[in-house]
């Protein structure tokens, strides 16, 4: 948290020149320095004092964390500072928001594991983890102070929304805190409240992540918060507006509904297409879907080529085939037990390869989602290695004799490029045809 206070603005500078954020940063720094001097006696670690920087309204935060609040004396001290007039309570607000984090960190330090994930507040929490939680008397005291603070807040123009949101947030956090197990939610909630205002001072990525988590969990404030973070993240200004989250016109409502539908369908497709769990962007997902559809279509083409090349059996029995089709496992096992005759060797060589092809086609499609054209060139080159490694290939036959043949055939087919598609499935059909013709002759 300390490094986020490295504000470029000068401490005593003209407030009019700086932006609002800079102002609050300056304030934070100044307060931090102030507190550092005073708080040094309370804690041995100097870092802890940094945690309590800007503790102007720490008291009002404390009241919502009954039983979790840290050292009483520090809080009292901090609350006393709240008497200081702030030119813009807007500036004070983020400080309060900021203070929440360390307080909450204190509060949850009993069982909290410090994880510094590049989340600035987490750093504060980890530092406070060592502080033993004392209790609730402070909370009771600070309740009154919070009331005073709230009055002050309401005095400023256009602060009703603030109050409402703050109350909501407090309620949220209250409810959450009573559930001791959800420590992370506490963190996230406060962070969410803060993110409405000070997005620059926290990594926006974390915010959005946490916000997205919260969106699903907390019900009524979710829309509000998401919209808030959307709007705040764009410029440098802190815009405090009246109630957000309510769509004002039918267009945006319809648009949102449509977007939700599309995202729902994309999620469904993500389950269908294998290997898409990590891809988050819409374009990447569409890429994967397109590749998968293409690979499936080529597989069908390739299989139909194979079926066309196969010798027709006169003792062809549909029902028998149907039974076999319904129990593919049995066919696979029987297939391996059959003695390998030279006539069928081409097929036998081909089949495990073909099974691998279907895996390959998908894997290659998945591994290189962004390489559209390049894949078609690189795929055949990577096939030989894959085939050499497949276990199913080795199950059927000792691979040594066939490897070189296969590779040479692959290369030949790649260069010829006979069939319509350059996908890995392509070369084998040609091989099969050629070998079939040879056998028949």
């Amino acid at each position, binding site marked *: 948290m300390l490094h986020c206070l490295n504000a470029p603005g000068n401490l005593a500078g003209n407030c009019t020149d700086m932006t609002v954020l800079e102002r609050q940063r300056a304030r934070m720094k100044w307060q931090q320095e102030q507190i550092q001097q005073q708080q040094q006696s309370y804690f041995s670690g100097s870092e802890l004092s940094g945690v309590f920087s800007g503790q102007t309204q720490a008291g009002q935060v404390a009241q919502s964390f009954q039983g979790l609040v840290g050292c009483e004396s520090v809080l009292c001290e901090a609350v006393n500072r709240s008497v200081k007039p702030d030119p813009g309570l807007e500036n004070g607000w983020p400080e309060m928001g900021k203070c929440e984090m360390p307080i909450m960190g204190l509060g949850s330090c009993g069982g909290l594991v410090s994880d510094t994930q590049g989340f600035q507040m987490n750093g504060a929490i980890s530092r406070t983890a060592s502080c033993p939680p004392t209790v609730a008397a402070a909370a009771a005291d600070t309740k009154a102070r919070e009331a005073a603070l709230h009055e002050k807040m309401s005095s400023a123009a256009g602060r009703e929304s603030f109050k409402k949101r703050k109350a909501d947030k407090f309620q949220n956090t209250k409810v959450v805190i009573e559930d001791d197990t959800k420590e992370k939610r506490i963190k996230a909630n406060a962070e969410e409240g803060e993110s409405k205002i000070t997005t620059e001072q926290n990594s926006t990525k974390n915010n959005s992540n946490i916000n997205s988590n919260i969106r699903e969990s907390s019900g009524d404030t979710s829309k509000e918060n998401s919209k808030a973070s959307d709007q705040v993240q764009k410029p440098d200004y802190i815009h405090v507006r009246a109630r957000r989250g309510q769509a004002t016109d039918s267009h945006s409502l319809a648009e949102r509904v449509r977007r939700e539908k599309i995202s729902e369908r994309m999620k469904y497709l993500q389950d269908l297409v294998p290997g898409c769990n990590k891809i988050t962007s819409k*374009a990447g997902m569409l890429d994967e*879907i397109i590749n998968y559809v293409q690979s499936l*279509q080529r597989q069908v083409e390739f299989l139909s080529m194979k079926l066309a090349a196969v010798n*027709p059996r006169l003792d062809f029995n549909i029902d028998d085939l149907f039974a076999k089709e319904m129990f593919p496992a049995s066919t696979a096992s029987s297939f391996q037990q059959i003695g390998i005759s030279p006539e069928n060797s081409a097929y036998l060589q081909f089949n495990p390869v073909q099974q691998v092809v279907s895996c390959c086609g998908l894997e290659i499609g998945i591994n290189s989602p962004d390489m559209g054209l390049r894949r078609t060139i690189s795929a055949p080159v990577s096939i030989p290695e894959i085939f050499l490694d497949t276990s199913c290939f080795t199950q059927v036959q000792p691979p040594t004799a066939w490897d070189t043949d296969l590779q040479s055939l692959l290369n030949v087919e790649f260069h010829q490029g006979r069939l319509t598609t350059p996908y890995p499935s392509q070369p084998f059909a040609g091989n099969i045809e050629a070998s079939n013709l040879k056998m028949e002759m």
Partner: protein
Amino acid sequence: MNNPRRLSSSCSMTNIKSRFTHGFLRALSRINTRKPSTTREICKRFLRVKLAADASMASAVGSRRAWSRAMLLKMRLRRRTCRDSRITNDKKKKKKMSGSDQKEEVNGIRKAEELRGLVPGGESMEICKLLDETAHYIKCLSTQVKVMTTIADFYSL
């Protein structure tokens, strides 16, 4: 909302699978009456088998889905016209997007166009419906591949 849809779809998928298998095997038996002697004959048979696969798949799905309807319509039109036009139909060129495709939205639209080209009947669909059809099409394609793989395995024994 997804769960009941998925449950019903899995039941319907087995129905589609069995229907497809029946139709496809019948078509195969009709096609594979003689031994293929020349490469050219094999190519012809390949095209017929491919057509049979698509047709039996579309018939198995029926008129429930937009893509199957479009596929069936295309096949009926094909039967009425000569073979040359069928080949030219297959080689439909996609529209080229020009201009700066910097924005993600434009990229998304381009991908959507590509997807439209892949899914039968997808040209005149909006994104939402296109994604729906794509999902069902992917499922049907994968069952088709499974069935054909099993048949091919059986054939090769």
